[in-house]
């Protein structure tokens, strides 16, 4: 990807921990405003994980899950993904549209998920970039999110592909969501391209 001037590896990702935490806080604030219920987003892990273990991140490998994915360009490349179960996604749609009991992913439900991912992702990235205190990370441009529903392991293979080509462990930032004290089955994954083998 052209224009990249910063490499995120296992060392630098630790240095960015404060920036990720700030990103998570702002993502929670943005989601609270968007949904109208208090939601907090917490940094969960930023540790490299063996590739095999990473395939269980979203639960059972052959269970379908949903994923809204934004490609990142600019100072560094990678992907930002909001992943959730059908049940959690439908609940989100119901909160946003007021239409109760959706059971299938129609255009309205997908649109709710995509807009939520867009708001969440942009808030996360903006706060992260602003608090990074590193002039090399001045611009990160996310693409509009795309909606995918597929087997969990299939989606994870796609997400970690870039890293798997050069390393045996994968590097990512994972957050967890709490709404009114309860853990939501949502995962925000920031997966940088990395040149580290």
């Amino acid at each position, binding site marked *: 990807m052209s224009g990249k001037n910063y490499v995120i590896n296992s060392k630098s990702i630790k240095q960015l921990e404060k920036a990720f935490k700030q990103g998570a806080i702002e993502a929670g604030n943005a989601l609270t405003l968007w949904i109208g219920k208090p939601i907090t987003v917490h940094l969960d892990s930023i540790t490299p994980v063996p590739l095999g273990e990473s395939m269980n991140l979203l639960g059972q490998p052959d269970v379908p899950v949903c994923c809204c994915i934004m490609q990142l360009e600019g100072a560094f490349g990678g992907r930002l993904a909001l992943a959730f179960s059908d049940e959690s996604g439908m609940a989100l749609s119901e909160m946003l549209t007021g239409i109760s009991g959706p059971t299938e992913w129609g255009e309205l439900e997908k649109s709710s998920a995509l807009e939520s991912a867009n708001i969440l992702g942009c808030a996360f990235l903006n706060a992260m970039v602003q608090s990074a205190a590193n002039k090399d990370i001045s611009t990160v441009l996310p693409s509009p999110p795309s909606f*995918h529903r597929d087997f969990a392991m299939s989606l994870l*293979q796609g997400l970690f592909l870039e890293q*798997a080509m050069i390393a045996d462990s994968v590097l990512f930032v994972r957050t967890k969501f709490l709404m009114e004290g309860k853990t939501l089955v949502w995962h925000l994954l920031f997966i940088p391209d990395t040149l580290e083998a």
Partner: protein
Amino acid sequence: MAGIGNNLPRFVNMGDIVIGNGEDRFSTVLGSCIAIMMFDPTQKLGAMAHILLPHRRASGDDKIGKYADVAIPEMLEQLVKKGCTLRKIWAKLAGGAAMFNASSSFLIGERNLAAAREVLDKISVPVLATHCGGTKGRRALFYPGSGKIIITINGEPEVEI
């Protein structure tokens, strides 16, 4: 043999190579990865590998089942050690999707498939069927005692290859 006596199929993770017969069943889930399934109809013995990349890196881990170029000869060697005959063995392939239509993803799925075909061609193992490409993940269920393979794409009817 793996999985004998179990009701659930044995899950074949990335980089795994498994051999089975009789009532064994192997399953795996694929995105850009490829499942290589080999079967000897005479011995009624089959093998499944879940490869991730086309070629082994110069430096990297030594789980040879991750790489098409080294996993396939290893499968063949294991089958022959169990009494299979090279000229009787056939292969079928599944996977190799471009999950998000991104250029790199597209390339790696295709490259995995091309590498697998190239190695199989080199060792004269015929590829009888493939279920590859597209932008969707797949679940592959392999019966190594009969060679039967069922492919499921999420939201679509299952198909036998």
